[in-house]
């Protein structure tokens, strides 16, 4: 079982390890907590972490944001922002992203309703996540850890003695 704070921290680091920008990494960490805390599958988070980072291309039409391309970790915040900006629908290029986009919207208070690759807001009540330990499939956790490890710097003797402070033994 894992604490939600552990999940937020690890997913955020994994996202940075996957090359996702800092702000979107923060968002993905929060969405992972939302999913885990509300009993949802965290598979969309892992999928987003494994997706290659590509250029985002979106078009802002009247009331709708249309996604032509881009990875889910970057599209999620854009769609969530779009609804906050008053857009009432989003059209995805890749329906495989729908689960993560739904989580981004739900976390921001928008209950998603899908028709094909188009999402709009519904008036369904959104369940808020609860604060309790959660189980994460070992395979997902391992992927997160491996990606997070890409942000860690191996130690050298010099960094070990200086990077964290003095190299003292404290028998006093």
């Amino acid at each position, binding site marked *: 079982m894992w*604490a939600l704070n552990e999940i937020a921290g690890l997913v955020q680091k994994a996202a940075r390890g996957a090359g996702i920008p800092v702000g979107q990494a923060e968002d993905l960490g929060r969405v992972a907590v939302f999913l885990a805390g509300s009993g949802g599958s965290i598979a969309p988070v892992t999928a987003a972490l494994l997706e290659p980072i590509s250029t985002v291309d979106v078009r802002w039409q009247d009331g709708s944001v249309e996604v032509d391309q881009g990875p889910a970790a970057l599209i999620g915040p854009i769609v969530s922002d779009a609804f906050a900006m008053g857009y009432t629908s989003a059209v995805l290029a890749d329906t495989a992203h729908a689960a993560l986009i739904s989580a981004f919207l739900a976390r921001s208070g928008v209950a998603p309703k899908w028709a094909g690759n188009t999402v709009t807001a519904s008036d369904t009540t959104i369940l808020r996540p609860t604060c309790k*330990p959660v189980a994460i499939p070992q395979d997902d956790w391992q992927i997160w850890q491996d990606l997070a490890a890409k942000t860690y710097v191996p130690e050298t003797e010099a960094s070990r003695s200086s990077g964290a402070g003095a190299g003292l033994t404290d028998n006093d």
Partner: protein
Amino acid sequence: MPLRSPSTVMRLRRMGAGFPTRLSFLRTLMRALAADDVKVTRPVWKMDVAGFGHAVYSLRFGVYDYALVAISTDLPPEMRTDRVIATAWDTTYVLYDGIPDQSEIDRIVASAPKQEAARFTARDLVLCRANKSVRLFDHVTDALKSGQQPDPGKIRDTGYLMRTTAVYGNGKFGIADRGHIADRPGLGGPFMAEMLTVWLIRGFTHDLAEHVGCGTLSREAKRHLGIGNATGLGMAPFLVNHPLLLDAWMSVRETAIARVRAIPSLDEDQIGRIYDLVARAAQHLAEWNAPDAIAAQRIATLRHEWPEFAATLTPEALMAPNPIDQIITQSAQRSVDTQELIAALMLEPFGELIDGLTECMATSLEPELDPTMSCANLRALIDRDWDWACDVDYDTPAACAQFWYVSEEKLEPRLGNRHQEPGAALESPLDIGRQVKALAGDLTTGETPVGQFLAERPKHRAAARRVQSLARHPYAEIRDNLIGETCLPIDILRCKLAFFGAGKFDPKSDRWTRITLAQGAPLFDELDNADDWWLPVATV
């Protein structure tokens, strides 16, 4: 009365001159424990004659039961280190949610000594370890064994029997998330569970020394024996990564300072109290020694300036209109350290006026982006609030001399020299000023909503969120270059530790420090007199 400007308050040098106040978390906790008439009991004490074994302390606080499980282990001297790289400790602890049954005690006794190498449960609220100050612990127990009290000078010199080297909360290693206790009376404030833990540990260290020494320490000695702490870089990124919490702490302290500055006049009792506190501060400064060159210089300046300041506190000055505002205004001519000590002192007599503000020191808010804001307005915020970030040329070697990173070996924050050490490509994003300057360089000035701008420039999302957050939370950012050559992490550590209630800062380098917590704090049976231990001085 306006608050002190964030551009003054949020500089590293001033944050690194922080002192504990009556708003500090340990002080708040003691008042809450006293108000709730909390009784600490020790239902389990299974120690051998050498002081190895385990104990359980329990208390009922805000209608919830809690227990500290303390484990004392025989540690070979060569394994005793305060650094986070340690793998074994003299003592380890869990603050438990409820009263543990035997199976839970057995679980904790087996797992707590492993610390990070073990997994814990949501019944475990705080995980902690502490090493003996061997010189003082052995002296105290030897003295007691010979039927004497320990040397008061030695107690004053060290001030604690053990030093904690990590106090983990909020979900670390499987313990309960903060959300589990955030709404509970008494424990809802920031770091309250951690502070309760270290106060209980302090009492345990007294009990353990008396057990090993087969004698009773004087009440005065115990009161002056706080709990030490060694804190390293791991604490520094916390304040950068929790900007709204930093804003809450700072806003409360600055609001409190503004409230006492607005007091129109002082009565005789209040004037007498200020004189007492000025004298106490002088004694505290005399008893505060730190070998570190920078710290020693700052303490020397404080000792030099304090009598000069005290001499200005004539009866006429204190009976004049708006006396505290006058005192704080005039303090600007003194060193930053003296200014901050004066401000902390002036809060002390006015609990009724300011203690309620501590209710605002926790926040459940997280920084949120407003995608509807226009780029022009975002630009205006940068122009207004971020000159300290945008006026820096981060391409110069000195302005980017350091980089923060997470070490592969211990998964702990570290600080490296960009120009001499490998790893800068993997640096942690604590270069807030540089990020915002990069945003400013790409930001358009039109009415395009920020949400659309960020769709085209996703890399600026974090910086845009911080700019917007600072507009609403003016004390949310450390207004200095955290990767610059002159950034001293010790300043960040001291700011946070002062909010905890730490004193006697004893830096061992610019990136780790020893401190004393709960020195002078009430003992378990003294909670009826819980609130007069600001800047404790020796009575032993």
